[in-house]
């Protein structure tokens, strides 16, 4: 198996599926000749031409809206939003249109689009190139939200997203693009949307995370193992629909749960994770579910010192885990 980073995995997967199924096409800003500001589509324009790798005008609402229309017309569109922060002008198309198409038409129409959303901080992006926008969509039934952060998970879930009959927000952590490498499975490799993945088995406590925080949690778990504490690390992989089953099972096993996200605390996905587990595993919990998240600040500032002060670190996660383990 070849080793790729997350960005290469996204590119290779789009390439493979566009070769395999001509209904698949990509649209977005600079995705064509340029290859995308993240370089996610490098080479696609030359391989598939300007009608399947579409450089759109600077207009996100229409990027998603055109994708929706193309999906209704029988294509399988991948809409690239250049930075997740800019998906906000497409919220109406995503929530009013894509998420409700099947329901409102009583199953007569459906909307198989993928909206690729590069998100997350730690890249000196400042307030508008760092946001975690997932919680804005998390309360919308009809949407699916996936956030894989290993090259293999990216392949399995991007393929699943492309062929999923319903709209999928595909979250890509920008810091993971180059920093996270791993094996890239060949050929038809699929993962189910809606399943969390136990990335590390442990008996003493459970840490639930996604995105870069999941990798930090894995690192912290190794550190804690040296202290004789075995942490189970669960990668949500899919945020919506939430895989409550896997989370609750682990909580019942360890009795101590921590949820971590880079998004700010209030109204973050950690709230639903904590509430859901507590509802179903209350009697098994030795401690309240602990949340580690960014402070309630509008977004991540540009200055590196402020940026570091904003984003949860592996150290913070480790300290939280230790406290929880000792509870």
């Amino acid at each position, binding site marked *: 198996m070849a080793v790729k980073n997350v960005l290469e995995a996204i590119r290779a997967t789009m390439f493979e599926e566009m070769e395999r199924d*001509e*209904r698949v*096409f990509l649209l977005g800003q600079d995705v064509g000749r340029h290859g995308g500001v993240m370089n996610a589509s490098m080479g696609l324009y030359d391989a598939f031409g300007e*009608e*399947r790798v*579409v450089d*759109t*005008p600077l*207009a996100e*609402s*229409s990027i*998603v*809206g*055109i*994708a*929706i*229309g*193309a*999906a*209704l*017309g*029988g*294509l*399988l*569109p991948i809409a690239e939003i250049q930075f997740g922060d800019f998906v906000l*002008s497409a919220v*109406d*198309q995503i929530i*009013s*249109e894509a998420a*409700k*198409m*099947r*329901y*409102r*038409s*009583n*199953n*007569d*129409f*459906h909307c*198989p689009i993928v909206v690729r959303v590069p998100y997350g901080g730690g890249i000196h992006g400042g307030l508008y190139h760092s946001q975690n926008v997932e919680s804005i969509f998390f309360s919308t*039934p*009809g949407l*699916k939200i996936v956030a894989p952060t290993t090259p293999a998970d990216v392949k399995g879930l991007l393929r699943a997203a492309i*062929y*999923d*009959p*319903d709209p999928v927000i595909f979250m890509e952590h920008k810091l993971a693009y180059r920093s996270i490498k791993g094996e890239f499975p060949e050929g038809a490799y699929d993962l189910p949307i809606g399943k969390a993945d136990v990335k590390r088995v442990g008996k003493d406590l459970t840490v639930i995370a996604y995105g870069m925080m999941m990798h930090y949690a894995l690192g912290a778990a190794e550190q804690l193992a040296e202290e004789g504490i075995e942490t189970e690390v669960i990668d949500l992989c899919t945020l919506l*629909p939430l895989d409550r089953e896997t989370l609750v099972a682990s909580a019942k096993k360890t009795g101590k749960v921590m949820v971590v996200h880079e998004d700010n605390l209030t109204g973050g996905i950690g709230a639903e994770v904590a509430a859901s587990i507590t509802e179903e595993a209350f009697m098994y919990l030795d401690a309240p579910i602990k949340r580690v998240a960014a402070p309630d600040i509008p977004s991540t500032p540009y200055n590196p010192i402020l940026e570091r002060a904003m984003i949860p670190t592996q150290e913070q996660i480790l300290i939280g885990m230790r406290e929880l383990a000792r509870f």
Partner: protein
Amino acid sequence: MATKRHIELGLSDQDILDMYKTMVVARAVDDRADILVRSGKIPFTVLGQGQEGAQVAAAQTLVAGRDWVLPYYRDVGVVLAMGMSLREVMLFEFGKADDPNSGGRQMPKHWGHRRLRIVSQSSPVATELPHACGLAWAMRLKKEEGIVWASFGDGVVSKGDFHEALNFAGIHKLPIVFFCENNYYAISVPFSKQSPVPSVADRASAYGMPGVSVDGNDVFAVYKASLEAAERAKRGEGSTLIEARTYRFAPHTSNDDDRRYRSREEVEKWKRLDPIARLFAYLKEHGLLDEERAAAIRSDAEKEVLEAAQWAERAPDPDPASVGAYVYAQEGDAHGR
């Protein structure tokens, strides 16, 4: 006696009589819907009386099942012309389980019917216009024949999605007819507070497409402009923005009181321009119709509409247990059609 405009435009006597009938039936549907609300049989409806001429004339240029049609909530004339049955329309008015548009989930007249290629419409306006571009893109990639037709009101022109859609359609010369039924009000907001320019057609030049403004209550003017636009689209020359100048005789919806913002004189003035009456005068002038047969057409229409309404009223409501169905695909749902 004047030349026969319908013949000049390639419409047979039968065509123009059928168009007349469809307009009359559309009018009867809304008149009935109005009664249904007033009598408390349904909680709400939207009425399009006065706009049937523009609707039916435009739809006459479309091919059901080939062209993608995105009609808006006043377009009873359009959906009837595309083949939606009176029973289907009335099932929607009553929000019944078998309503093909939404199974009773949407407010009446938010059309959608896959077999007829009528695309499911939401309430937020203008969001459908980028969909029209995407549908046209799909037709291009799939090398399908046909065009995309989308209608909307004058208020919709103010929305960002209108701009983003027409911009994209203009850049890529997409085969779309953008059909604005300008009735000069967005609920109470007059066109003068909605638009800095006197005609919606004045917007077209910004998108590198022709803008045509026609008397929306003159079926021939609307048909001619729509036909030219459709042919232009099929020739690969791109989109056209048509403004059909018309008027709604009724309040905005059954919840609205238009006396707050429209003078009765203004409404009366427009009622004298009723497209149905105007077409009747033409048909009579050319010996294609007389009062008696027109009365028969009207009473037949009313009978059919009433029958459909009574039938729909008795039709089953959705099962409350079905409220959770179709949030996501289930096993066996068709995909990627």
